[in-house]
């Protein structure tokens, strides 16, 4: 009887250790997959032109055009080029700081990263294409079929409460780590938005060029962001990523 008890206890410890090792492995694998998928849409030293179409009740309501410049993973500058009402408005991110410049009132104001950009379904931080491995730890939940292809299913948990989304469920294509879909959740566990990433052309070297963000809380609301031009390995002067430079052209 004693031996049976010993064996049971040993089994329990072994199972527990295995589970812990398995969990660590899941995290290690998850973070590795996340980094590789981040590399696929890495715009850390790039000039990107994109347009954003905002749909309500499946009707196109507004079209915005923007130019984004980035330096490293911590500095991004977005400038609106269309429509004329918003032309010249700029959003600057330096680390966790985001400022908005509105030329009509000649003022620079600090804004929250969580606020939706110009009433679209994308938040300010979404537009900066910030690497997810900067703010999230990733755990591999398994491998699933997504649109007929094998995809890693990852669970991303925010490293701090200051991040825009508390949790993201992320599908990444197995064969080439191409990002496919994200579901964004609040701290309380409610699904907020779904982002589908698609590659519709090879013009941008196969990276996703169309990002469709659908609002889950409100029906028939979505915004589509389309990359129209991308230049990687661009080296922009540091001075354009300073708050004081927002009132200047460059």
């Amino acid at each position, binding site marked *: 009887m004693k031996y049976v008890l010993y064996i049971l206890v040993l089994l329990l410890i072994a199972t527990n250790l295995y589970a812990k090792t398995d969990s660590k492995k899941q995290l290690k694998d998850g973070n590795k997959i996340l980094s590789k998928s981040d590399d696929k849409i890495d715009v850390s030293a790039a*000039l990107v*032109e994109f347009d954003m179409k*905002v749909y*309500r*009740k499946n009707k196109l*309501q*507004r*079209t915005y*055009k923007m*130019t984004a410049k980035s330096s490293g993973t911590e500095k991004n500058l977005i400038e609106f080029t*269309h*429509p*004329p*009402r918003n*032309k*010249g408005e700029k959003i600057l991110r*330096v*680390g*966790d*700081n985001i400022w908005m410049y509105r030329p*009509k*009132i*000649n*003022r620079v*104001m*600090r*804004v*929250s*990263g*969580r*606020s*939706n950009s110009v*009433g679209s379904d994308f938040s300010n931080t979404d537009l900066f294409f910030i690497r997810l491995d900067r703010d999230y730890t990733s755990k591999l939940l398994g491998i699933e079929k997504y649109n007929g292809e094998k995809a890693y299913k990852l669970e991303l948990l925010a490293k701090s*409460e*200051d*991040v*825009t989304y508390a949790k993201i469920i992320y599908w990444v294509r197995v064969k080439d780590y191409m990002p496919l879909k994200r579901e964004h959740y609040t701290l309380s566990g409610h699904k907020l938005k779904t982002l589908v990433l698609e590659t*519709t*052309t*090879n*013009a*941008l070297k196969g990276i996703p*060029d169309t990002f469709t963000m659908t609002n889950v*809380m*409100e029906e028939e609301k979505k915004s589509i962001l*389309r*990359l*129209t*031009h991308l230049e990687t390995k661009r080296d922009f002067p*540091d*001075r354009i990523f*300073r*708050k*004081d*430079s927002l009132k*200047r*052209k*460059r």
Partner: protein
Amino acid sequence: MNRIDCVIYLIVLWGVVLSFCPAASLMAAKRNAGISADGDQEIGHHLDALNPEAEETTPEFQGEFKFGGTVQSLNNSSIINPDNETLGLNGSETVLDVHAQISDYLTGGQNLRWVVKSYGFSSYPAIDNSGWKEDFLRIDEAFFDGGWRNWFVSIGKRRVNWGTTSAWNPLNVIVPAKNPMLFDPPTEGHPLFLLNFASDHFNLDLIATRDFDRNWDGTYNRWGARLGMLWGDKDIGVYYFDGEAYAEPDVPVYLTTPDYSRLMGISYSSNFFSDATLYCELASFSENTRYYYDRSGNQMEKDAPVIRGALGSVITLKNNASFHVEWYYNGSGYSLNEKRNYYSWVDSNLSTIYPLAIAESEKELLRNMTILNYQNWAMNKNYLFLAYNKLLLDRYEFGTVLITAEDASGMFSVKGAYSISDYYLLETILYQYFGDRNSEFGNFIVKNSAAINLSSSF
């Protein structure tokens, strides 16, 4: 418009003409690049024509037309303007507002540019008993600026805004708003020289400026410095401004905001959790002259250092909504007794002017002297600003603002806007002022008003 303004306008027109030539070639390039007429472009084309390096070398021209109408009912219970006899305002008016801006680079490296911003305003009263009409065309800003590495220089007529707050802005002393209770910045720039040095964590502004005079003949020199620091997610600014105090044109010196010889101040802004920002400003003025009255109606003068400050937060709410709260402390505000004495004095003074057997123009002069001998805005020490904005169905925007002062008077406004297209916006705004006869907003000239505006951006 004087001769110098005319010359600047000719330069602007020249710029506009130039801007159309490259614009035409850019349009042709867009067509060649496969961009459709409505501006859509097909992915897959290499868009050399839209490469910003190429685009930014062309002159830029943009602006806005606003055509609107206002209907207002006057505040007949006001002590300052009883039965609209003092100021002769009209019941309704139409307004045309035009802003235009043109800029271009002078060097291929795009380090040196010139900018001209102009503002035109024309107001036509529908019921005009007094012949009152206002229109003007002016150059708000005309300057050169340029940078090299961490240095930046700007020279010309320019508006520079200091501070981080939103509704009230006590540190904004270089080109201050004429009335801190009105949030629009209708002021024009001042002649100014700005030298800036910036690094990733520090920046320093050195400013020399002069008051702006219609004949470009200002006489009061001022100077200042601002040191900005970025520390983690915190913005901190330290300010100093000094020189000769001056008045806005046609306004007594003691009524203007920059009536001080020295300013020292600080500003702060930071993130406040992930969905809010926090900001504040504190400004210490070395002197402030203001007049007040004792119970017997004797005018007296106070000249003392004052502090003004503002503290606020913008909170992002769900579903494209935001809430904005700001508290303003005005150290030069009046006590309740001082306000009551003043209104009592105005009341008795005006009642002696009306029956006088003198010309109407002389009466008006006496009335204006009675009113202008006192600061009848920013009279309270404490104010609260609350605003809520929400985007509805994307094309519709709703906003409401409440401003209250410590004397229980205030202003409430509701705004609705409809975006007709990317170029046209229709908006309507309703204002309601409230308060008793001894309060600041209770003596506002207008009781309520409704405005409708159609604006076009180009």
